[in-house]
């Protein structure tokens, strides 16, 4: 089982990612346990996903906006946001919108090119779980959460900007 960071703890992840386009009308078979489906699979096989006995999660690619599932968020216990490269910053806006615009309270997980030097920024945008890239040490990566003890902006760690805090 993959080790990940969730709520700043190292834990085992129970989620299985359903390969996109692996489902067809002829062969509708999910893996056992908790599953994460793509946006297109969710839209194509909604009833089947809901009937699955395990927990249900969704993965958003960097070019998929949360608005494409805005009315379905209650069905997902976890939403993964994929970073194809750590320099692709679209996922930050996705997480922030999920939390602030759509009031999503489930797990938001960063997947893909997830590295220590971005963890604090990601957390501030609403991510609470991190699949750190497999070639990196998780314990070392945890240091990335505490690079800064003070920041200026209103974000998910600090709902008020510095000028409204006491």
């Amino acid at each position, binding site marked *: 089982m993959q080790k990940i960071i969730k709520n700043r703890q190292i834990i085992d992840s129970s989620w299985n990612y359903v390969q996109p386009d692996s489902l067809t009308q002829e062969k509708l078979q999910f893996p056992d346990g908790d599953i994460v489906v793509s946006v297109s699979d969710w839209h194509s096989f909604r009833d089947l996903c809901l009937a699955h006995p395990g927990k249900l999660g969704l993965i958003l690619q960097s070019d998929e*906006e949360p608005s494409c599932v805005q009315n379905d968020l209650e069905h997902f216990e976890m939403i993964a946001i994929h970073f194809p490269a*750590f*320099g*692709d*910053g*679209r996922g*930050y*806006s996705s997480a*922030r919108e999920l939390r*602030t*615009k759509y009031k999503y309270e489930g797990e938001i997980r960063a997947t893909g090119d997830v*590295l220590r*030097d*971005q963890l*604090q*920024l*990601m957390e*501030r*945008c609403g991510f609470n779980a991190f699949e750190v890239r497999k070639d990196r040490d998780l314990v070392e990566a945890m240091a990335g959460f505490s*690079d*800064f*003890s*003070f*920041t*200026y*902006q*209103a*974000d998910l760690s600090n*709902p*008020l*900007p*510095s*000028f*409204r805090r006491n």
Partner: protein
Amino acid sequence: MYLYTEKDQKIIEQRVAQYQNQTERYLAGKLSDDEFLVLRLQNGLYIQRHAPMLRIAVPHGMLNSKQIRMLAHISRHFDKGYAHFSTRQNVQFNWPKLEQVPEILKLLATVQMHAIQTSGSCIRNTTSDQYAGVAVDEVADTRPYCEIIRQWSTFHPEFTLLPRKFKIAVSGALTDRAATQVHDIGLYVVKNAQGETGFQVFVGGGLGRTPIVAPLIKEFLPEKHLLTYLEAILRVYNRHGRRDNKYKARIKILVKALTPDVFAKKVDDEWADLRDGPTTLPEAEIERIRACYQDPEYLTFPGDNESFISHIESNPSFKIWVNRNTVQHKTPGYRIINLSLKETGQAPGDVSDTALESIADLADRFSFGEVRSTHEQNLVLADVQQSDLFELWNKLKTLGFATPNIGLLTDIICCPGGDFCALANAKSIPIAEQIQRRFEDMDYLHDIGDLDLNISGCMNACGHHHVGHIGILGVDKKGQEFYQVSLGGSANEDAAIGKIVGPSFKEEDIANVIEKIIHVYLENRIEGERFIDTYRRIELAPFKERVYAKNH
């Protein structure tokens, strides 16, 4: 100027520690070149032609004498004894060692300076009018807004990995001295009919491969909404800006593709969620920042200083310098002084370590200990008493900063070019020098009058060639350096992109070409007309005809 609170100080110190750790991990092989690239760029460190280049932020061009002395110290001990002032009011060191950068940053932090977000795909240093707070034509002092934007943009969690770099400029005077309309976001501080302060918001201007003057997308944004509205613009850009092609990734391409109206609508939709939220600026916060930019303790003078006037009357050289390099100050008895960094033979914007120290001394003695950098790559002492001007002029002459050429043809904006920059297609500093030598005759130069001549060594346009009245762009043709000339650009409130005259010229012909262009102007100008006015009246054809005419 703004003085750091404990928290402001803490954030830059923690940044030093973070960057030191990143450098150590890179040197230990725990970060790949590509991974470290993004991290070091976010901290202003490029790998250049000969060595790394470190860019230091100078927020809205404001420096105090202590900071200038620190820049001198760093240039002496970590560089080759000089610093370069860039076209974005920043300072660049061309020869630091990668391993020593954390140590340099530590020293900078002791004087409230940093290199945060001076490069990379993030929100860069906000630039402004070098005469902010002292200009006679000012609507409002822009510096408090620039500082508010600096704090908001520093490590903004959502906008640190944008599609491409992002530059904001703020101008608050009738004359735009900040090239505001060729920025990703340009803000003009304005008052509405009710006398309330707010902003005209321009989005999607820029130079580079696709030069565009920014369209206006908001007529009047009340000041308290500044940050929430910027946040809405950045979110639309972060989400929708192109990431598949570096050359189409700036916000100007998005605004153009969507059309300004559709883009503005998208921003308004996004803003609806953010407006009046916690990031709305309370009056008390604007006041807190504004309090840092209050006038220094000016003395009261009934009018012009008598000895100043008599020096002007008796000394023609002094008079020329006063008229050219100094500007009327809002307070009677004071002048704004420009230090020209454009003496012939000196690379535009370069200042030696000892000269920096002398400038710091002059600032302490004559101008409340403050110095400003300009996007034209000069320096300003903003608050000098008229009675001190003659003495200051003599000192500046000794230092080589009194060339009376501010705003003239030889006050060339010029990027470091092929001599330093890894991106450049061609050299630019030697071209500037070639032109300066041709126009060394001061009477002739002053007769030509106001003229912006800008040189870039490649189409990234760091030398702002598109918005020079005359622009020169270095191009590479089969390994040889050629120069394309454009005419009619402007970086002011009447911003315009210059038109290319025609086929490019050889390096050795540039001064001749410029001279021909000047001849056409002098032959055609109507009394009092500046070069740009004549160009706008007679347009490109007569210039084109002359520069390509066979010798006769």
